[in-house]
């Protein structure tokens, strides 16, 4: 059984979805939870078209139903988890009828999904930004983890929890410590023992506290605490929620360096722009995909004159700061990672080349890598800490719908485009159509809008003009836009930067807007 939650994998992870389709053809049940009737939902046995931001209500109701029907995995829960009583108490009010009222998903379908998930021999929950681009992103994820713990669908072949990563090295960036609280190998910087290993290797003290994630950095700019920024391969002016604020803060920096493939909207604001090579084909290194598989990227073409590999730029900056690290070599850096990150220790370039990639953890040169995590939870007795239930409560989007802003705007990707278009603008896609505001035909009729008519979309933060496109696959009251064409339509003028306090992710999936006719 495959449960795709807040994921339009058919368009956003097409080759992953090939594997899902193979599973479906081989008899797997598939359910899709998504406010929109997507191409992904077309292949599912059931589509839960929930109201935006009611994921926890849905998940908790499934959990309650699984408990009430006695379908939970007593053996696994008893041996490997803790906190069931608190979870049970937390979901007790979440009846099917309550959830139907909150989510607009029929109670019968919630019950069907709960039973299908709990009864499946193997079941997988996969999610994407429909879960994480909310003000309660971490709680949303915890709600799904609770379901996996309740049913024992974790740590086993064919069962598990899969966040589908949106970029080719989101996983690898985090694994390498490009997140505020981790050192390479996912080792927590506030753990003195783990930090000590790095301090010993590098012969220096490291900051003992976590740094700031992107949202916190913008907050610190607002407070005047952060005045200098070195931005590598990111286009926050176009990609951050509430673009007006993002522009004001970036423009207010005292010193701003951008390093990117092209002169992005963000780079255009910088004091210094460092032209970078495209790491995936103009340089050497590794990336890590959604399944923790480390794979080699290799140089196929020369970068344009004047552009250098990220590594070469960083080495040169280090040299000018008085630290000569020698000639830049991706393999030498990687071997240092292997010395300091136990989960990567066994992954030599030679092995990565020969095997076409290895999954971490890969503890030594004879270790084959692990296809899935948490298998220790099935050992008897369980070594190490039990996995805890984390009861979470439904909390709707920060921006409620009201008379002034009565429509919900949600955002997402299209198959042939990618994020802010920095890369995809370089090819001519036959599927390309410019930005639209997708709207249900009933809403369009009510507002007197016809297909293709330009409309003014206004939120509390900004306003854009964009043609409407009638889409019966939306639910009434819901509108949809992408971020793919920031030069034409700056969708992020509309989005809200209400962020999750734990992850710092902004609520791109739920803004409140109103539509205004543009008089001819």
């Amino acid at each position, binding site marked *: 059984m495959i449960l795709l939650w807040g994921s339009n994998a058919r368009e956003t992870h097409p080759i992953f979805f*090939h594997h899902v389709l193979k599973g479906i053809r081989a008899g797997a049940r598939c359910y899709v939870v998504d406010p929109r009737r997507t191409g992904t939902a077309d292949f599912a046995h059931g589509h839960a078209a929930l109201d935006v931001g009611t994921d926890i209500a849905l998940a908790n109701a499934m959990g309650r139903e699984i408990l009430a029907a006695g379908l939970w995995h007593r053996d696994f829960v008893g041996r490997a988890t803790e906190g069931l009583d608190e979870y049970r108490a937390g979901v007790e009010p979440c009846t099917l009828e309550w959830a139907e009222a909150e989510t607009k998903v029929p109670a019968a379908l919630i019950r069907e999904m709960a039973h299908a998930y709990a009864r499946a021999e193997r079941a997988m929950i996969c999610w994407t930004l429909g879960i994480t681009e909310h003000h309660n992103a971490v709680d949303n994820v915890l709600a799904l983890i609770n379901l996996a713990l309740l049913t024992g669908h974790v740590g086993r*072949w064919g069962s598990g929890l899969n966040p589908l*990563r*949106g970029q080719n090295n989101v996983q690898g960036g985090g694994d390498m410590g490009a997140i505020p609280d981790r050192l390479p190998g996912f080792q927590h910087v506030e753990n003195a023992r783990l930090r000590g290993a790095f301090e010993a290797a590098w012969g220096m003290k490291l900051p003992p*506290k976590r740094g700031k994630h992107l949202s916190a950095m913008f907050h610190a700019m607002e407070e005047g605490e952060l005045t200098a920024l070195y931005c590598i391969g990111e286009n926050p002016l176009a990609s951050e929620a509430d673009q007006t604020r993002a522009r004001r803060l970036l423009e207010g920096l005292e010193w701003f360096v951008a390093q990117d493939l092209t*002169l992005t909207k963000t780079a255009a604001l910088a004091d210094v722009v460092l032209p970078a090579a495209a790491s*995936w084909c103009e340089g050497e290194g590794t990336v890590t995909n959604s399944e923790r598989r480390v*794979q080699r990227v290799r140089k196929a073409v020369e970068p344009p004159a004047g552009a250098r590999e990220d590594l070469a730029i960083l080495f040169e900056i280090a040299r000018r700061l008085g630290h000569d690290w020698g000639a830049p070599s991706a393999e030498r850096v990687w071997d240092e990672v292997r010395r300091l990150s136990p989960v990567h220790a066994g992954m030599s370039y030679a092995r990565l080349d020969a095997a076409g990639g290895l999954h971490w953890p890969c503890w030594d040169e004879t270790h084959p890598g692990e296809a899935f*995590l948490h298998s220790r939870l099935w050992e008897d007795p369980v070594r190490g800490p039990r996995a805890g239930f984390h009861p979470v409560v439904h909390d709707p989007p920060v921006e409620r719908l009201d008379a002034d802003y009565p429509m919900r705007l949600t955002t997402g990707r299209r198959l*042939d485009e990618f994020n802010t278009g920095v890369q995809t603008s370089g090819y001519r896609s036959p599927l390309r159509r410019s930005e639209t505001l997708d709207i249900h035909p009933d809403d369009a009729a009510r507002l007197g809008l016809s297909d293709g008519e330009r409309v003014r979309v206004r939120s509390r933060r900004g306003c854009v003009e964009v043609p409407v496109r009638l889409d019966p696959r939306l639910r009434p009251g819901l509108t949809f836009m992408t971020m793919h064409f920031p030069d034409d339509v700056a969708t992020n003028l509309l989005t809200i930067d209400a962020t999750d306090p734990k992850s710092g992710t902004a609520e791109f999936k739920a803004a409140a807007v109103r539509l205004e006719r543009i008089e001819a």
Partner: protein
Amino acid sequence: MNRSDPWSGGPAEGAVWFDPPPRAAKVPGPPPSPARPPVALSVDGREVRVPAGATVLDACRVAGVETPTLCFHETLTPVNACRVCVVEVAGARTLVPACSRQAEAGMQVKTDTPRVRCSRKVVLELLASSVDLRIAPGMAETMARYGASPGRFGPPAPDAADRDAREAGHHHAPDGAAAETVAQPVKADNDCYVRDYSKCVLCYRCVEACGTDAQNTFAIAVAGRGFDARISTEWARPLTDSACVYCGNCVAVCPTGALMGKTEHDLRAAGAWDPERQTCTDTICPYCGVGCSLSLTVQDGRIVRAASPVGADITRGNLCIKGRFGWGHVQPGPRAGDAP
């Protein structure tokens, strides 16, 4: 730490926090599949053993017997369309397609009998007399090996107009003086790939890749009957009016070059396609987090083709539109978005 920073906090320094959990006691992996005894059979008198479920073609390869194939592809369901892989099996009345027939214990397979050679020769002649196989990899060698002379059916008939326009049953009986062909104009209706059905042997690979074997888009199918059979979209509309999503997984499996990336097609048309000047480098797609392997063919410092290795277990040779065609942003010249 700024007091108003809503993301400050966490445990005190020095606290033992987030120690990694213990390592798995044994390496996690798939449950063992039930052991099935291997199958013993003979190929051209040689005894071979293959895993249960293997095909006669697998057995031929284990025996080191070269067997020509055209419609067979390791990632697709065999359709038995081309018949060039036929072999003789003792006790069977008809020739057997090696690519789909399952190997059975005690089977006696013969691949080099006069009957097999004659059948393969005629199949190759019929195909080559009607289809342009000049750039089909390996075809010239296979034709020579079987002494196929497609010219014996006469000179090729004049090129036809678009065969999609033909109506079933509206034919004149041929006079036998010329060999009917599938020649027709190239269909170039988009910037990703072109369809030159003069080169199509109707192997069905593209239909299968577009269908349940990989992409599940169902933009194309075999239309028409008999010699009019051809690959077509619904109502023969241009691809841009079809369900096509330009993954190019059809291009990847085409054995004859009938389907080809636009860049490669244009270079060949200009006489500038030169494998001698090309390198092929494996890397990873720059887009989503699936991590698809990309093989980039580069000529004169430019990417001229992106494909994925069939052996890559993530892709099995498949990609999406971005992976297969979305590399324009790294081509030489001003980069999109660069200041003028």
